[in-house]
């Protein structure tokens, strides 16, 4: 008796494809975190070798400083802007921003709140120290200057 079946190469089984995709999916679910804000300023971070990782993401609030992105430049020009949450804000708004960020945290975590300043490397220190001054006034004294890690010692 002849064996039944077509000639030629049998099709590759795709039964394990879902498993492979699920594996990639789980990798992404674990290693990433949800995007919270749309970034409206261009921030090319300065690089440094001695950076520390901020472990607890929920304790970190971000202040972005830099030139508006291209789509916003028609309205806002090219002068550096401060972005809090989802929009450009002025300096005095930082007080309120810090207060609202602090309210989101539990009582025990408030002392550990860190404000991360994500500023473009071409920014001038004037605006940064204005922001720092505002943060002192808001009593948010733990800050972190965002920088990307380089292996070499900064040179």
């Amino acid at each position, binding site marked *: 008796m002849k064996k039944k079946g077509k000639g030629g190469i049998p099709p590759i089984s795709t039964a394990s494809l879902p498993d492979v995709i*699920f594996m990639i999916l789980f990798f992404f679910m674990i290693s990433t975190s949800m995007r919270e804000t749309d970034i409206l300023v261009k921030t090319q971070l300065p690089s*440094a*070798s001695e950076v*520390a990782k901020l472990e607890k*993401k929920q304790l970190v609030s971000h202040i972005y400083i830099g030139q508006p992105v291209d789509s916003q430049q028609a309205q806002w020009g090219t002068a550096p802007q401060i972005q809090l949450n989802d929009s450009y804000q002025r300096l005095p708004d930082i007080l309120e921003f810090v207060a609202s960020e602090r309210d989101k945290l539990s009582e025990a975590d408030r002392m550990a709140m860190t404000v991360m300043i994500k500023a473009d*490397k071409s920014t001038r*220190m*004037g605006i940064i120290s204005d922001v720092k001054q505002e*943060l002192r006034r808001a009593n948010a004294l733990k800050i*972190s200057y965002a920088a990307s890690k380089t292996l070499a010692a900064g040179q």
Partner: protein
Amino acid sequence: MAGKRQIQEINAGSMADIAFLLLIFFLVATTMNVDTGITRQLPPIPPDDMQVTEDMRVNERNLLPIFINTYDNILVAGRPTDITQLTDAVKQFVINPTNDENMPTKKNVDIEMPDGSTWTVPVSEAVVSLTSDRGTSYDIYIQVQNELTRAFSEMREDASMAKFNRSFVDLGDEERKAITDAVPQPISEAEPRNVGGN
């Protein structure tokens, strides 16, 4: 003849599509980058009615002023310094190996060790004061902060090797605290001057 009747298997062919859909959702909605940065503690705003008393003033020999001007030149105690020499200059100043009269004083501090003993160590009272101009670029400011951090972490590493014969990163929490007390990181970030007219 037909075989035995069996319950038909559920077709799993679309499982891959579902998984792909979820995967793409997570790719779009999440970010991967971990926040890294140079952490600093800002000084609290002094109350308006505060008087500067004599013991609050930093002794002049303990102070290392670093100023970055609007052209991104670095002045360490008034002398122009290249950024590559900054770490060594800071370490030299803080450690004061020769107990120079014009360099920082040291104070013996008793630190409680995790095993219950006390460790008396001379702690340098140096303060590094970093001032910038309003026109200084943020890039050079971070580079200088980076060099300062490097100077202090190298000193901590040395202290850790001398005391525990282990690297600072391998220490336990209490030992790490002892080293941090022995080698504090006194970097003062003063408000900027405005010379450059920016």
